[in-house]
């Protein structure tokens, strides 16, 4: 069953259309991440889901039931907002219990629910403190506890880890995942951070231009993205993109980029783009190899401009004819190239072609 279903949702403010014909189905019991660039409309989507605002068009179904016209209180969903939004004059305890006080939950059960969630999030020692006595990470945990204290089956989390330092985020990944599993609830989580999406999602919906452009199982989307936004941005560092132009040579379609020329197979369903058409060519960082055995690879020379040391891996920033290129190598492989120049190798099949106008996948390099 779908816990959440959005059909043809549109939302505009004045003349600015934020969401346009947005469709999304979220299967019950999944951790679903809505992923998109900052300011792509994620928070607006959340406001529509939580009932804080109403759409201009379209339907919202929760648990299979019509919910478009329902107020926030009638939707029975848990909500963790982006900013902590804690009441400064309440203790952590009273902040957490607030959603239960609102629905006049019995006092004894409130105490038990607060205690249980506080223990689970390891904040039971902070319950008597006020928000100004808490660190950023502690506040986020209190906000999270408040969002999930109301026992329900659908929780909306609006980019809750933004601004946390990465050590806290690391811990929160585990906490959030465990919490979703132990509640066996549907989590809809928005973020613009690809590493958060990758760490948390069972399935991902990519929001771009006011629409969900692609949705599905995380790993399937990562392996075979159908939309350029998915391939370019769902991953860190972001994928390499080049302009390309199609041409024919000896009955084979080819694509010319600033780096190399490669034979391509166009998807059978697409109208064959005309000779000379411009396309976008995208290659994931992990598919760029350095000083490889050149057999069967497209190669070119590149200048190393920066090695960014993550500890276990090194992000290698390169330039080829002033085009930036990025790849990641494990640290044990990074020691060997001390020179400023390297040979870059790419397997043609790892280059994916997208239509410039629609952003849809239209082909792939041929071996």
């Amino acid at each position, binding site marked *: 069953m779908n816990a959440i279903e959005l059909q043809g949702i549109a939302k505009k403010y004045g003349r600015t259309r934020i969401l346009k014909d947005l469709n999304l189905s979220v299967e019950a019991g999944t951790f679903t991440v809505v992923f998109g660039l900052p300011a792509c409309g994620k928070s607006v989507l959340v406001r529509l889901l939580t009932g804080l605002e109403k759409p201009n068009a379209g339907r919202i179904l929760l648990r299979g039931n019509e919910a478009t016209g329902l107020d926030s209180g009638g939707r029975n969903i848990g909500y963790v907002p982006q900013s902590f939004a804690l009441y400064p004059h309440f203790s952590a305890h009273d902040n957490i219990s607030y959603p239960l006080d609102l629905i006049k939950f019995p006092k004894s059960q409130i105490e038990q629910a607060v205690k249980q969630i506080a223990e689970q999030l390891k904040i039971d020692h902070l319950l008597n403190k006020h928000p100004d006595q808490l660190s950023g990470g502690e506040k986020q945990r209190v906000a999270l506890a408040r969002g999930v204290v109301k026992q329900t089956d659908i929780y909306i989390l609006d980019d809750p880890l933004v601004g946390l*330092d990465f050590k806290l985020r690391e811990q929160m990944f585990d906490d959030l995942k465990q919490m979703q599993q132990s509640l066996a609830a549907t989590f809809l989580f928005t973020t613009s951070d690809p590493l958060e999406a990758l760490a948390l999602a069972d399935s991902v919906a990519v929001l771009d231009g006011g629409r969900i452009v692609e949705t599905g199982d995380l790993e399937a989307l990562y392996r075979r993205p159908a939309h350029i936004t998915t391939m370019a941005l769902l991953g860190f560092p972001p994928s390499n993109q080049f302009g390309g132009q199609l041409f024919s040579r000896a009955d084979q379609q080819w694509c010319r980029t600033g780096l190399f020329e490669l034979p391509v197979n166009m998807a059978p369903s697409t109208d064959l783009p005309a000779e000379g058409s411009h396309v976008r060519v995208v290659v994931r960082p992990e598919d760029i190899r350095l000083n490889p055995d050149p057999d069967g690879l497209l190669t070119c020379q590149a200048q190393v401009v*920066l090695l960014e040391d993550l*500890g276990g891996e090194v992000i290698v920033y390169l330039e080829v004819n002033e085009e930036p290129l990025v790849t990641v190598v494990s640290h044990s492989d990074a020691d060997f190239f001390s020179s400023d120049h390297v040979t870059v190798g790419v397997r043609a099949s790892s280059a994916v072609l997208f239509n410039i106008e629609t952003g849809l996948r239209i082909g792939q390099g041929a071996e």
Partner: protein
Amino acid sequence: MPEVRLVDLQKEYPGVIAVKNVSITFSTAAVTCLLGPSGCGKTTMMRIIAGLESPTAGDVFFDDHRITDLPARKRKIGMVFQYPVVYRSISVYRNIELPLLEEKLSTSERKQRIRQVIDILGLEDSVEKEISQLDSGTRQKVAIARTVARQPAVILFDEPITNVDAEAKVQLKRALKELTRQLQQTIIYVTHDQTEAMTLADQIALMKEGEIVQLDAPRKLYNRPDDVFGGWFLGNPGMNFFEHQVVALDGGLGLKSPLFPEPLKISGLNGQDRLTIGIRPEHVRLGHKSSNMAVKGRVQRKFIVVGGFYLVSIAMGDKIIKVKVDPALGGRIEDEIWVECPLDWITLFGPDGRRLKATLSV
């Protein structure tokens, strides 16, 4: 260029000791990063070096000169802050030139210095632009150029990249790397970001709760942390830690662990009855075949991390170990897998969290 020395430095505020009895030498012609989480005392220490705060106890030396009581303006220090200190309505060139007008320089010397920093920082295309036309990264470059052109004895950077847009960060790091390579100056660089520190530093002083936990070259600090804190703080994620009881084994000491097929011998202990094994996720080996040091584990979860690598959580007895593997292997990992923790990559810590000189063997 002086070497900067802090001797028994202490800074107390009501109810809190921000810097606890720190002694450290910042070498000349090197970049030393003060790295640690927020509240660890790194910024306080920098402010004391700059003369913006006085220590409660202890001294600051530039070479052999005690400058603890010298006012900030007499210390010949240049500082770059989180937010760029620049004049918005004048050109980049004028911004760099203004502080130099206060120095007694010939026109040609002044022009030569401006040209030099513009070259190193890659500001050629922006020289005539006003600050308001620049992105956040370029603005910060201008702030750096202003500081560097004065040729101060010591340059202090206080999280200069933190507020720069993501795309501009790489350009700024590249410029900083080039700058520090060419300047060969005493540079002290405060950051909470381990990647920045690992990328830019010759030496990292890792700080925790007002103390320096370790001062070392980045790779040494990463591979051989002196303290559990260094193992945890560096790396994403940090080290796996497993606590073990020391037991009697074959007339000596040893430990039994679900990470290894057989009990292991320990030598070099100094009376400890418990210890912690630390190993980084990328140093654990996974395979589909058994080996004499491997134990079978059950895959709990896996997901993609930086560069398509996989982070795999594997249950081994009652322990969970996190392992980072390359994209090709990560994609193929299923329910069960052989896990090997190479002894060379294991660091042992005592109950106080400090690294032990003890070693494990079969």
